[in-house]
């Protein structure tokens, strides 16, 4: 046991370091809507959730790390170690009434380690993207005050916030598990605006760093062995921010010069609302299971507004199904997991009386790998739309591919062979 722990720790460090490094500056989106607030919520989730419509609050942690509900960490089983790593890529098409263009973005989508402590409890650490920013707005025209002219600016944003999460789950009764999570939210968002007025130019570079912590709590309750109910709450919190600002200017065709360089300018806190999520998991047959989930994020109560948009309460509906032919089948494809799902999100932003809603269809397969039980490569694909093309808004259709390696029990398999 002692040996395992130290090995695990070492491995955890090795695996998390690249994750933390990466998480600092990567965006997995090209959405212009990421201009608002702290960016758009990342839709990359761990493991198989992404192919089940992004839901799964009632899914047991039996074979994978279910980061949606900390209570699932109680169900890893005995002497289990899980490692989950994924990459995701997004190809999107962004259009308004007159133009459209293709964008591509991608990065590591998650890194997680978890293991059982006792047969009734589990612990894990994960780093997952929280929000993503990746926009570039070229040729933004604004009026010059005191003149009839306009000036043109290019506005760019990039960066991401990440969620470094410690999770603990415990089974308190035979059919009730509870769990808690402590998140450290951190990251930086860089915004760059370039202005050109004839022979002069101005570049304002703002590096906004946000940090905060958030607590989560979850319950899973098995009505009977085929039906599980899950509930998870994330408590409201705020992120405090600091900004480094650099202003560079080109004055009448001279070389660019620094006119302002200020560090650690305090930013007003960004409030995160309470999030209430619930779902059911139903095992219709041995080889067919369904999940239905519903979530609420009460952004309206944060009373926050952005430049143009305002924050409104957000409702998310998700459903998914998983099917396989025969878990003990000799033919490899008999053991493949086929998954499909749907997600509808009313969005948290209202721009000119239109909320930026999105929906996506998901599909995926899980390929069992390795000699042990429960290791999978999960490939999921999502196709969706965000926003609408009406008015001055932008419609974005995106295709996301997510590849996850969900590895279980690897440690002990090796030792047994030795």
């Amino acid at each position, binding site marked *: 046991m002692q040996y395992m722990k130290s090995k695990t720790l070492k*491995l955890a460090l*090795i*695996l998390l370091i*690249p994750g933390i490094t*990466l998480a600092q*500056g*990567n965006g997995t989106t*090209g959405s*212009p809507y990421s*201009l608002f607030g702290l960016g758009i919520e990342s839709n990359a989730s761990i493991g198989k959730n992404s192919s089940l419509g992004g839901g799964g609050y009632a899914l047991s942690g039996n074979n994978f790390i279910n980061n949606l509900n900390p209570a699932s960490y109680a169900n890893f089983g005995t002497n289990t170690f899980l*490692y989950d*790593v994924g*990459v995701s890529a997004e190809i999107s098409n*962004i259009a*308004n009434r007159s*133009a459209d*263009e293709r*964008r*591509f973005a*991608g*990065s*590591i989508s998650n890194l997680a380690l978890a293991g059982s402590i006792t047969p009734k409890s589990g612990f894990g650490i994960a780093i997952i993207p929280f929000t993503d920013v*990746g*926009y*570039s*707005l*070229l*040729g*933004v*025209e*604004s009026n*010059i*005050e005191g003149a009839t002219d306009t000036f043109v*600016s290019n*506005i760019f944003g990039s960066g991401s916030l990440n969620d470094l999460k410690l999770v603990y789950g415990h089974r308190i009764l035979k059919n009730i598990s509870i769990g808690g999570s402590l998140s450290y939210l951190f990251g930086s968002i860089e915004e760059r*605006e370039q*202005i050109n*007025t*004839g*022979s*002069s130019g*101005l570049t*304002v570079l703002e590096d906004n760093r946000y940090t905060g912590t958030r607590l989560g709590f979850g319950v899973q309750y098995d009505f009977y062995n085929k039906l599980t109910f899950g509930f998870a709450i994330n408590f409201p919190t705020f992120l405090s921010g600091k900004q480094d600002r650099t*202003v560079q*200017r080109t*004055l*009448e065709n*001279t070389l660019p010069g620094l*006119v*302002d360089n200020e560090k650690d300018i305090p930013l007003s806190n960004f409030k995160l609302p309470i999030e209430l999520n619930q779902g059911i998991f139903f095992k219709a047959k041995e080889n067919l299971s369904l999940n239905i989930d519903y979530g609420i994020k009460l952004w309206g109560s944060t009373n926050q507004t952005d*430049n*143009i948009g305002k924050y409104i309460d957000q409702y998310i509906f998700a459903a998914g199904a998983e099917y396989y032919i025969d878990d003990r089948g000799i033919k490899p494809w008999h053991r493949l997991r086929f998954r499909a799902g749907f997600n509808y999100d009313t969005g948290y932003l209202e*721009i000119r009386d239109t909320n930026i809603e999105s929906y996506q269809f998901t599909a995926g397969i899980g390929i069992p790998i390795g000699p042990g039980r429960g290791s999978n490569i999960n490939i999921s694909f999502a196709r969706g739309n965000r926003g609408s093309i009406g008015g001055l*808004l*932008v419609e974005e259709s995106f295709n996301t591919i997510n590849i996850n*390696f969900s*590895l279980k029990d*690897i440690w002990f*398999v*090796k030792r047994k062979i030795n």
Partner: protein
Amino acid sequence: MKKLLIVFSVGLFIVACSFDIENIPTLEVGQEFVNSEVRVLVLDTFTVKLSTFRFDSINSSSTERLLVGQYNDQFTGKVRTESYFELTPRDYELPNDAELDSVALILGYDNYFYGDTTLISKIGVHQLEDRVNPDEDFFYNTSRLNFDPEPLASINYRPEPFDEDSLHISIPIEFGRPIFEGIRENEINNDDDLREFFYGFTLQPDANDNTSIIGFSRTQEEGAFTIEASSYLRFFYTTPQEFEDEEDFYDLIIQPSTRGVTGFNHISNTLSEESSLTALTKQEDLLPSIASGDLGYIQSGTGYALRVEFPTIRRLFEIEGTGTILSAELQLKPPTDSYNDSFPIRGNLNVGLVDNNNETILTGLLNDDGNAEEQLIGQQEEFSEVLYEISVGTYIDTKLNETTIVKDALLLFTQQYNNSVDRVILQGEENMDFEATLTLTYAIYEE
């Protein structure tokens, strides 16, 4: 297996990084629902204070141009230019049997004129009684040398600065003979010997002329060993030959200014008693435009120049928020009746910096690197009217950022300032026709 995991992580890292290259899209949709976070303002309510001052002296000996003439200027009074120069030959070699036929002073036009060239002007050629040798390093526009009040020769002529190459003035042969013979007989062998006979000439316009000022040039071309003279004192002579006499000539020339101080122009103006410019006696004296008909005065040669100050520029700080200027443009306009074909506006203005006493700090303006840069005011012709526009962003930025206030000012002056009489009048900040204006573009990046 552990190794495999590490390899795996590294692999992912590389994949993630290569994705990152494509991370910033370059799309042109989505900009309609955003505004710039930067406010840009245009402000043109700052006071532009114009004051005329006068340079005590201008080096007028470092030029190839001879200026002669006199005219009455509507603004700067009676403007008079006199030219003083020494004449020396290229060498002291003449054939022993050369016989002097005639002597003439040839003045080559250099296309410069100011005033009415259709009127007949008078030039008197006088012998100098002082050697052309400055007390200090140079001669100035205020300098003069003694000369014989009786002209050696004089000419009434209609200037043709473009249609003719040169002006020919006959000199009495009696004047030329001793010089010619002295050189032929090897009694005059060098410049000092020559100065025993002759210091040089001054060209004096008639005291009553109100015509024009004309430019002649000393040299056309100066090579390492040869000087192609444009203006010279020419001795025409013949040498007897077996069948036919050979005609030739021998020149005394004005050595180029690059080879020493061998001449200068005296440039002066006589103001009427009512002129407000009479207030200027010392270089630090100022004549604000509001005290002189809302006009500022610039003239090459006579030494008038314009000092431009922006006394209210720091009111920019009263605007809320943190910002920086993106450009500053000064617009100035000469009154339309101040120039015409006879008194043309020639090209751009020079810009410089002067201190509190109107001593020149710089000609040109400081750029961002701290170097002085030649900078000209752009001249725009709109509706056949002249408007000067000058970018003064770097200067204004310096003024806004200085911790202790330096009482310097922009200096505006004409080109060819030491060898012409070009004159530009500019309208001041309260002028009814066009107010001198400073237009600032200011960007606020923090509200």
